[in-house]
């Protein structure tokens, strides 16, 4: 079957099989390399994408479900304000996620800041549960995210000294 979907801002026509998973289509047909189909069970979070504005596991998403939908991956999201702020925050606090989870962790944290401009620790940890990689301590990441959110809000309301 053929489906049409907007992926990272561009319209794509894709030929898929009924049992294809979104993660395989994105990686193999569109060569989007930030995604890894590691667990295929929604556990490792290394295939997170934004599907119509909601974070979801591309390994749990049948490819036919993206007909008419909009998909954004790290490749697009890394350029938005929130993702840049998270990258800068990580750099400042010497947080360096491993190559397996770096992209999806930035994606998840950017989505968090879009949806919760001033997130509480519980919400941040809930988002971090999506990418349960041992390379970074969630508590330390949460502290940095609080700082990033605070800075972004100060800038937004012109309260920066």
């Amino acid at each position: 079957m053929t489906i049409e979907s907007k992926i990272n801002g561009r319209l794509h026509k894709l030929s898929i099989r009924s049992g294809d998973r979104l993660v395989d289509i994105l990686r193999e047909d569109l060569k989007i390399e930030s995604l890894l189909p590691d667990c295929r069970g929604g556990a490792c979070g290394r295939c997170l994408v934004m599907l119509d504005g909601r974070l979801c596991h591309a390994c749990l998403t049948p490819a036919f479900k993206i007909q008419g939908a909009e998909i954004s991956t790290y490749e697009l999201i890394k350029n938005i304000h929130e993702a840049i702020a998270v990258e800068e925050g990580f750099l400042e606090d010497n947080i360096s996620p491993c190559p397996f989870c770096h992209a999806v962790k930035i994606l998840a944290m950017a989505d968090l800041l879009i949806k919760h401009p001033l997130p509480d620790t519980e919400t941040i940890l809930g988002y971090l549960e999506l990418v349960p990689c041992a390379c970074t301590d969630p508590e330390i990441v949460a502290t940095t995210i609080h700082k990033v959110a605070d800075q972004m809000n100060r800038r937004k309301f012109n309260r920066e000294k």
Partner: protein
Amino acid sequence: MRSSEIHVPKTLQEALSILEGNSGIQVLAGGSELVGGQYERLISFPEGIVSIAKLRELRKTQRTEQFLEVGACTTLTGLLSLPKGTLPSPLREVIGTIGNLGVRNIGTIGGNLCSMQHFMDLWPFLACMDAQIEIKSSTLARWASVYHLADESGSPFLPPKTLITRVRIPLVFYNFVFYKKIGPLGLPGDSSALFVCLASIKHGKVDAFRLIFSGAKAFRIKDLEMMLLGRKLDTPIKEVQGILQIYRQAFARHAWYDGRVFNNTLEECFGRMFSS
């Protein structure tokens, strides 16, 4: 691998017609249960799939003074995003324990109720709360108790060629809530079960009481629930032990789950209620 025929209807009526005209077709909303238990490269689907997640008719929310009504394709995140106080607190709490955010973003309330392998997390809560579901086929529409998603033997059941379209949740306040998830983390399987007890205590007496133990099957004794009504919280321990004994014996007759687990949880639950 066999390829499946995928139907993506644009309206609810179209979806119902597809269901009516194709036997053996499976309804897919979020797909988290069907896909989540498979680890092969390709997902194995039944012969036909009707994908209903995008049907707008199934995503509406309405609230009155007495109840909250949500479309069956409302996602779990959608439920959690309802304004504070809209969703009864035990439900909010249990939804937060289902999967992770990514799963809750695609998993739907209807999908959670319609699992035919196993009762998932929401069923015992909604059944205890006397929630109603609207069941539709291409020719009929009716409301039924969520509890009727269990057949006479206690197994999950949904009439063939039908869809759950709406869920009506009464906004009733329970001041005693006890629940325990049993079994491994992740998707519910053979060793998973959920013990749920909701009660309303007024002036030191049991005013409403519901207890369901669910997993591969469901266990509930409505007559015993009635027996507890009006009991004082300082009921003599002998009487409470008597009720516990009836529960234990009744559960032992069903024998679809380890009785010791049920008995221990039951004792913990009653211990908390009658000491509160």
